[in-house]
């Protein structure tokens, strides 16, 4: 009770609220809409087309002389899309199960946003750790919440009361069962090496001992690290493949598969409800990429850049602790850390898009076979491999 009335409680609440607002409204939602734009643009470039290159910002409506369409063209497209989705008729077919039909889009969007709470998207900024919820079972939280998003798809498929969404929903649930295992198990080697399930601690371990995938990034060579790199690479590959399945991206977009199931689980949806499914998919992509960055790619750390307290790094700046310039320096470092993190996430999102426009869709039985017969076993053996190496070298 003392904590609830103390100023610490209000500082914690206020800073968490500020961080939540920042990460959701200033970073992730714009990132989602521009990922959709990037998806359209990159897919076009890969297929020798141009993609949406027309829509600019109609600032001539506000009195400017010319509309503003910056260098690439089409940067106003996400805004136009959003306006279109908001203004379209929200049609609910008569044959659907209304309650679940309404709750499904929210269930597909919200888990993706909630999982972002546990992601450390920066080191510290003005002394506050840049993670909304610093929980010591962060990775379990991520897995638990992100698997809720399958309910959105299954409920959408079931409540639509029509055959194609139904097939999509069935596919989604079985896909989820086959991939959750492999995904959870392939993250275990990282947890073994870092010795923690708290995501900020995993990142701190990588800052100290080199990234999981680039073990020499802290400038030190070590035999144990080199040996451990082998299971880490295997874990990275299996984890990334499972993440593609988790976020329903090609080559595992069986719930949606436009060519077979019209539009899969969201066939009967229109307007903003459809947009929520769409945004949910991309938010899940961002959350998934963020998790990969945290687990394997060193989180906010970049070799040579100091952390949010201005410590470490290659630049020889040393300020008296507590002085104004030290404050500004550490604040700038904190911002750079955040930028590095989202830069890595953006690079991974590009890989997601790149793979989507390269690979064809897996057949249904191939997907189940891959999940149950290969990824699960590889991840399981990989745990014992990691544990063995750790036992012999530490």
């Amino acid at each position: 009770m003392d904590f609830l009335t103390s100023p610490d409680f209000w500082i914690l609440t206020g800073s968490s609220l500020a961080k939540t607002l920042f990460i959701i409204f200033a970073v992730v939602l714009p990132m989602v809409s521009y990922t959709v734009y990037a998806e359209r643009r990159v897919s076009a470039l890969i297929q020798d087309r141009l993609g949406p290159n027309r829509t600019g910002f109609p600032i001539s409506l506000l009195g400017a002389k010319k509309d503003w369409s910056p260098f690439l063209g089409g940067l106003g497209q996400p805004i136009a899309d959003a306006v279109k989705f908001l203004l379209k008729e929200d049609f609910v077919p008569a044959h659907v199960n209304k309650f679940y039909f309404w709750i499904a889009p929210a269930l597909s969007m919200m888990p993706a946003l909630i999982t972002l709470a546990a992601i450390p998207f920066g080191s510290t900024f003005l002394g506050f750790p840049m993670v909304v919820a610093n929980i010591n079972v962060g990775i379990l939280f991520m897995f638990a919440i992100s698997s809720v998003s399958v309910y959105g798809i299954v409920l959408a498929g079931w409540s639509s009361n029509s055959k194609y969404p139904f097939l999509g929903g069935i596919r989604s649930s079985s896909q989820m069962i086959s991939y959750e295992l492999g995904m959870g198990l392939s993250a275990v080697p990282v947890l073994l090496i870092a010795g923690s399930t708290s995501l900020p601690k995993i990142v701190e371990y990588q800052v100290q001992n080199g990234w999981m995938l680039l073990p020499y990034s802290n400038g030190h060579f070590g035999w144990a690290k080199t040996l451990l790199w082998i299971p880490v690479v295997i874990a990275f590959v299996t984890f990334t493949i499972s993440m593609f399945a988790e976020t329903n991206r090609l080559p595992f977009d069986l719930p949606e598969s436009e060519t077979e199931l019209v539009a899969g689980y969201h066939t009967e949806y229109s307007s903003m409800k459809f947009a929520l499914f769409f945004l949910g998919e991309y938010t899940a992509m961002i959350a998934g990429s963020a998790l990969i960055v945290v687990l394997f790619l060193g989180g906010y750390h970049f070799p040579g850049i100091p952390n949010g307290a201005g410590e470490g790094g290659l630049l020889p700046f040393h300020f008296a602790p507590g002085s104004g310039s030290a404050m500004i320096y550490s604040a700038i470092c904190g911002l750079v850390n955040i930028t590095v993190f989202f830069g890595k996430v953006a690079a991974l999102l590009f890989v997601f898009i790149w793979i989507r426009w390269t690979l064809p869709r897996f057949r249904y039985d191939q997907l189940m076979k891959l999940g149950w017969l290969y990824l699960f076993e590889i991840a399981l053996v990989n745990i014992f491999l990691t544990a063995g190496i750790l036992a012999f070298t530490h």
Partner: protein
Amino acid sequence: MATYVVPRPNLTWKEKMYLPSIFAGMMITINHLKRMLKGETKVVMQYPEEKWDAHMPEHYRGAPTLVKDDHGRERCVACQLCEFICPPRAITIKPEEIPAESKFAKVEKRPKEFEIDMIRCIYCGLCEEVCPEQAIFLRKDYAITGTSRAEMKHDKAKLYELGGVMDGLVNKWNPLK
């Protein structure tokens, strides 16, 4: 009964892994992306900025228009042959007499109203072929647009504006035209 047993290909270990072919495919797509970014891939014409005008063949049949001769006289004498031959009946002509005090009084007739309904026009060029006075020509305008049906009816003023002046004796039967 002919039965064919299609042999399954024996996949090598590398092919079964599937990952090498994924990377090969990814290299192909990224090369396409790189070529696009460098501008080495030809893309379709960016229409409103680039237009067909420079690529139009000499014999292109665009919008039908009326022309004046080098004295500023409208060549049309309102014989209505084009109106009669027009397959979709897009042309409507109301003739009138040229008043006696006019410089061109001896021509006797001119169109009072000359309307071509561009929604009906099929750009066949029969009006141009049939015209004894070489007064109607198909120009190269192809983007005829309007926001109403009334706007899509080209009246006399609009037709002369599009057509302009045609000097001298124009050889209409030029095989390329």
